[in-house]
């Protein structure tokens, strides 16, 4: 039986009500159009991470996002998320944002190619309506313009 996180979140929230979990109002389903070995892949991260030379995220309700260059040589990754789980990932962001591993899978021809950039935003926001109406469509538009075939979201 895997560890259940919802009771821990409830205990952390008490005596306030537990944080609401929102599901998309419309279920998204898009069939795979190409083999992975021919697909362009992007990472999405809710760790509020960025390159060191980009503007920091502002906890806690920052609705902005960052394009993070997919080339691992682009620079060090900084995690701005305020979560208490951050000590270990801040030591090595690769464990929540596998930028190097994805590039290696491209070199090994398991993945077709990298998106020119990955995307990151702040997880744990309470402004669900603005996420669905503004942030998510903006992220989708970025992925469309970059002609991304597969987006891998790693929650933080």
């Amino acid at each position: 039986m895997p560890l259940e996180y919802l009771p821990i979140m409830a205990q952390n929230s008490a005596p306030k009500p537990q944080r609401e979990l929102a599901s998309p109002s419309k279920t998204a389903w898009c069939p795979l159009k190409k083999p992975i070995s021919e697909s362009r892949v992007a990472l999405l991260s809710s760790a509020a991470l960025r390159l060191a030379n980009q503007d920091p995220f502002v906890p806690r309700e920052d609705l902005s996002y960052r394009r993070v260059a997919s080339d691992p040589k682009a620079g060090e990754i900084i995690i701005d998320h305020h979560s208490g789980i951050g000590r270990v990932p801040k030591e090595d962001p690769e464990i929540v944002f596998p930028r190097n591993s994805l590039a290696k899978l491209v070199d090994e021809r398991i993945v077709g190619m990298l998106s020119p950039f990955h995307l990151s935003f702040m997880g744990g926001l309470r402004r669900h309506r603005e996420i669905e109406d503004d942030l998510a469509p903006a992220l989708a538009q970025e992925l469309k313009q970059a002609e991304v075939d597969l987006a891998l979201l790693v929650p933080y």
Partner: protein
Amino acid sequence: MVIGTALDIMSKVAPPRAAFVDHPVGCTFGSPHDRSRNETVLARALAELPRFTQAGEIRDLHCDWTPGGDRAWEEELRAEMLHDH
């Protein structure tokens, strides 16, 4: 596709495709600086992609955090998460 460690949260949110990694939250792709493990988890998730047949499905990548499947890490993580709050 979502690649995540919190099965109960993913079950409730129901993303179109989800891959479950039975690691501590914050260590989705393994331990820091373990590039081999990081790549293995990512490759497993990608290999699952063609097997999804309907929205809301969650596929287990069968990744144990410890080699023998020992789950002592759960109590340590729970205590840490409650302490840090």
